[in-house]
Structure formats: structure tokens, C-alpha cells
């Protein structure tokens, strides 16, 4: 079966307009990816990893510098008309639309760009507004919506045209728990209903990727570091022990990474609470006592200590050596 999305050695370099604006930036450096039809695929990575750049190429808004990208079997560079008929995209924090129009009018307007008959479009809009709990807002002007409501409207805009493939670029960014949950549940449901629907979801919320995605690619600095199911990715760190320490403020952390048995180490200082969180990937649990001694010798008190199950962030730390921002 033809994949929904395929990229081959995809590279994208951005050159500044003027020399004084800085150096060229390689946003994507030889990305190879294959997403099958019917997948809910996640792309996980920190800010600036290249997630949005990849999505822009796949949604025909950007050309690759080198390499190829295919969506529904069509080349995004040369067959973009065919690609556009089959896709849609929703971004987090979108402010598109017109404040003067009502929710229903905005949504209807966008359906017209996809050739939907008004009758069909309006019926589907009503159904989706109901599904997202926005039925009572359909005649409200868009500018009167809250952030969560607006994002729900954006999500409806993306799905109402019933695309074969939808790109979701951090769709729950900045939303509260309820709004995020509604959107996630909808996405899962949508993919399940038909096996020719595909979702490519980018996020840097690891829990979201873990919960929703059948497969995840981890990307950083424009490169795919790993691509597998969440379970298999976590198995990459299963042989290692994850240790989390909460201490009072620890000033000197230099010696901690060189303790025998410590594979990787990150920390977060919280000036407000005067606490430090330390996170270790250990090759050998024997290192625990040395770590505790080093923390105490550093003048800090240990407030909490626990071994944790590996998460996607642990996978990322193992692969890259830094956490998510």
C-alpha cells in the first residue's frame, strides 16, 4: 500500500536575506520518514527541532532544499495541486479567520475553498460544533471566543473538509486540560472511524504523544533520532535505571555527571522554591549512593528520591543528552 507520507533525504536550509542577519540555518538535515495510511503518527521534539518546517513542506507551503517528499503518493514540490485536495492543517495558537464573522460563517468560508457544497458543509459544521461543545457559540463573532474555543474552532476548520491526511502542529498548545482532552479524544476517534485517514501530529508534550500515537519519531536539530512505537522507544532506556532527586538548591553540580555509573544527567533549578530537580539515567544502580553522597557534600538536603519508569523524555535525554524545554 502506498504510504500516506514519505520523505527521502529531505533537507531544508534557510538563508538570511542579508549577511548581517546571521548565518544559514539547516532546519531539516536529511529526514527519511514513512507514515502509513491509517496511522496516528507523532513527531516529538523540542522547540526549533524542525517539526513545523517539515509540516510546512508536507503541506506545500515550503519547498525542500534537497530531497523528496510525497503526500498521498504525490510530490509536494511538483504535484501540489493534487496534494492540496487531500490535506488540511491545524496549528496551535492559530489566529486565522475574521473577527467580524461568526464561528459558523468562518468555518463555512473555509469549506468553500475545498469545493464543498454549502448544504453539505453547513450540516457538517453543525455536527462538529455539537461534538466540540460549541453549538451555542455558532452565531458568536470569532473575536468574542476564548482561546480554547477559538482553537476548537480551528480544529473543526481542519477536519470539516474531511481530508485524507491532516497535519496537526501542536494543536493543544496553550489550552487548558478540558479543551486539550476534547481535542485529543476527537483526533483518536476520527482516525479510528476510517482506515484511510492519517494524522501527523507534532508536539513537545511527551504525554500527548505517548497517549495518542501509534508510532513516534523523535526529531532534533533537523534529524530523526529514532522512530518506533512508544513502547519500543521506552525499551531503549529500559536497561538503564531512571533516578529522580528533589533537593534544596544545589549550587555545584559539576561532579555529578562524572560519577561512575551515571550515563546521562539533567537538572532544573527553581529559584522561587529554592529547589533543584535532578534526573539521572544510570547504567548501574550502585551509583545511587555516590550520587546521594555528592549531593549532601554539595550542601544540599535531599527532599525526595525515586526511581521512575522511562518516559519519552528519558528516551530523548538518552539520545540527545538534554531534556525538553
Amino acid at each position, binding site marked *: 500500500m502506498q504510504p500516506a507520507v514519505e520523505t527521502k533525504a529531505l533537507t531544508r536550509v534557510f538563508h538570511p536575506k542579508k549577511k548581517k542577519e546571521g548565518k544559514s540555518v539547516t532546519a531539516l538535515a536529511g529526514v527519511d520518514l514513512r507514515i502509513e495510511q491509517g496511522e496516528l503518527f507523532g513527531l516529538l521534539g523540542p522547540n526549533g527541532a524542525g517539526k513545523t518546517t517539515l509540516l510546512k513542506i508536507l503541506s*506545500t507551503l515550503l519547498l525542500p532544499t534537497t530531497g523528496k517528499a510525497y503526500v498521498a503518493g504525490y510530490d509536494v514540490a511538483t504535484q501540489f495541486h493534487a496534494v492540496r485536495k487531500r490535506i488540511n492543517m491545524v496549528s496551535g495558537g492559530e489566529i486565522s479567520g475574521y473577527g467580524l464573522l461568526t464561528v459558523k460563517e468562518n468555518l463555512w468560508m473555509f*469549506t468553500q475553498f475545498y469545493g464543498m457544497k454549502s448544504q453539505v458543509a453547513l450540516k457538517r459544521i453543525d455536527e462538529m460544533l455539537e461534538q466540540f461543545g460549541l453549538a451555542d457559540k455558532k452565531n458568536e463573532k470569532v473575536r468574542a471566543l476564548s482561546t480554547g474555543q477559538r482553537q476548537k474552532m480551528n480544529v473543526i476548520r481542519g477536519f470539516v473538509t474531511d481530508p485524507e491526511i491532516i497535519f496537526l502542529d501542536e494543536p493543544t498548545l496553550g489550552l487548558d486540560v478540558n479543551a486539550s482532552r476534547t481535542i485529543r479524544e476527537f483526533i483518536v476517534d476520527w482516525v479510528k472511524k476510517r482506515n484511510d485517514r492519517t494524522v501527523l501530529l507534532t508536539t513537545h508534550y511527551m504525554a500527548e504523544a505517548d497517549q495518542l500515537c501509534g508510532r513516534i519519531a523523535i526529531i532534533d536539530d533537523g534529524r530523526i533520532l529514532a522512530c518506533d512505537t512508544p513502547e519500543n522507544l521506552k525499551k531503549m532506556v529500559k536497561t538503564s535505571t531512571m533516578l529522580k532527586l528533589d533537593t534544596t538548591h544545589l549550587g555545584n553540580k559539576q561532579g555529578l555527571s562524572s560519577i561512575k555509573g551515571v550515563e546521562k544527567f539533567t537538572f532544573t533549578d527553581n529559584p522561587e522554591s529554592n529547589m533543584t530537580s535532578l534526573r539521572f539515567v544510570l547504567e548501574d544502580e550502585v551509583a545511587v549512593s555516590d550520587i546521594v553522597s555528592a549531593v549532601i557534600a554539595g550542601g544540599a538536603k535531599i527532599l525526595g528520591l525515586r526511581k521512575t519508569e522511562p518516559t519519552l523524555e528519558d528516551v530523548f535525554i538518552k539520545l540527545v543528552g538534554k531534556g525538553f524545554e
Partner: protein
Amino acid sequence: MSDTWLMTNLRAVKGRAYPRIIGASREPSWIFFEVALPLLTVAAYAYIYKFMEAPAAFVGFVILGGAMTAFWLNVLWGMASQLYWEKETGNLQLYLMAPISRMSLLAGMAVGGLMGTTMRAAATMIIGICVFSITLDLSEPLMLFAVFMATMIALYGMGMMFASLYLLLGREAWHMSNLMTEPIYLASGFYFPVKALGAYAAVGASVIPITLGLDALRQLFYPSSREAYGFLPIEIELLVLVGLCGLFLVLSKISLDYMEKLGKSTGRLTLRWQ
């Protein structure tokens, strides 16, 4: 869901025109601004001609020029540079992702803005005629209609070509539009016969559809002024305008495609705050 290419693009025109039309009805303050206030600039020029004791036809020229500025401004600000605003608000990328022609999008903007534009133009003409007691010759209505339509199609085609700049540029294109406003008024002879610029300048300015369109309309409304102030015979001007229609529509398609490709290559297609 799938429709023919033509139907999809016609729906796109309708869809993009809709916010313009509805927006205008929901914010009716534009009626005052578009109807009463533009007349003031026109009145100033009319009075200066009166002060200089110019022939009566010149006041009519000014009223006509003032009416036509409505269409020029709609092309420049309501269509071409509107893409700049769409880019800044994030709508542009949604439009560009959709399976529609860019010309449909721009046509929708133009059609949507036509209500306000037509009202502005008509108000300028009617009020100007009443206040300054202008008499217009309407003995060739078919020719008037033909010249007007050819001018509009060519003008909007040219506007689509300008719009393509906005796919690549940001504020630079906006400032270019700003820069072009007065020079076009000057070169196209909005408020005086373009013949006054000299033959070579007038020929050069004829590439802007509104130059010959205005000149032809003046000659039709004021047949007695043809010899003294008309640039070219009306028939020739109409022929050139029809040629410009075809030329600009083709050029705009080429330009839109090229600029979009360039924007996608350089990454500036959806780059805000350039």
C-alpha cells in the same frame, strides 16, 4: 465532496467575497467614510479649477477621476496588499494550502470589495454632478459600458499581478503600494488630461489600464473636448484596453505562480513581519 475545478474556484470566489460583504454590513461606518469623505479631495481639485477659470469640462474630469480612484484604491489596497494582511494574520497559509487558484482568492476579495467601491464611485459622481452642476454626454452608452468593463478587467488583472509581490515580500511590498498611489494618479492623469504629460509619457502611462480608460471615458462624456484634450481615438484606446485585459490576466497567472514558487523556495511565503 469533490467538485469540478471551475465550481471549486467559483465557490472560492464566493467564500472570500463573503467576509467583505458581511463585514461591510456589520460595520456600516464605512458608508460615511466611503461616500462623503472622498468627495472632499475631489471638491478641492474642482474648486481649484474653478479658481483658475478652467473650462467647465475640467470639473467634470476631476469628478470622473475621483470616481475612478475608488476602483484603483480597491485594486491596490482592497486586493493586492490585502494579501499582506492575510499573511500577517495567518490566513494566507490556509488559503495557499487549499486546492484553489490564487486568482480566485483575489477575485473574491475584489468582488467583495466592489460594493463599497461602487458606492464610493457612484456617490462621487452623483454628488459631484449635483454640487458642481456638471453635464455629461450619454449618447454612446454601449461604448461607455465597453470602455468601463475593459478598464476594470485590465485593472484588476494588473492588481493580481501586483498581489503576487506580496507572496514574496512583506512590508516592502506594502510600502511599494503606498509609494505607487500618487505617481499613478499623476501618470494616469486622474485629474487632468494625460495628454498634458507629453506624448512619450502618455504612451508609457498607457500600460496602466486606467490611463486610457479615463481618457476614453472623458472623451465620451465630453465629446467637445476630444480634439483638445483626448490622447488617442476612443476606438484605439478600447482596442488597447482589450489587449491589456488579456495581457494582465496572463501575466498575473505567471507572476502569481512564479512568486509563490519563489516564496516557497526562500521560505518567505508565510513569513510574518518581514
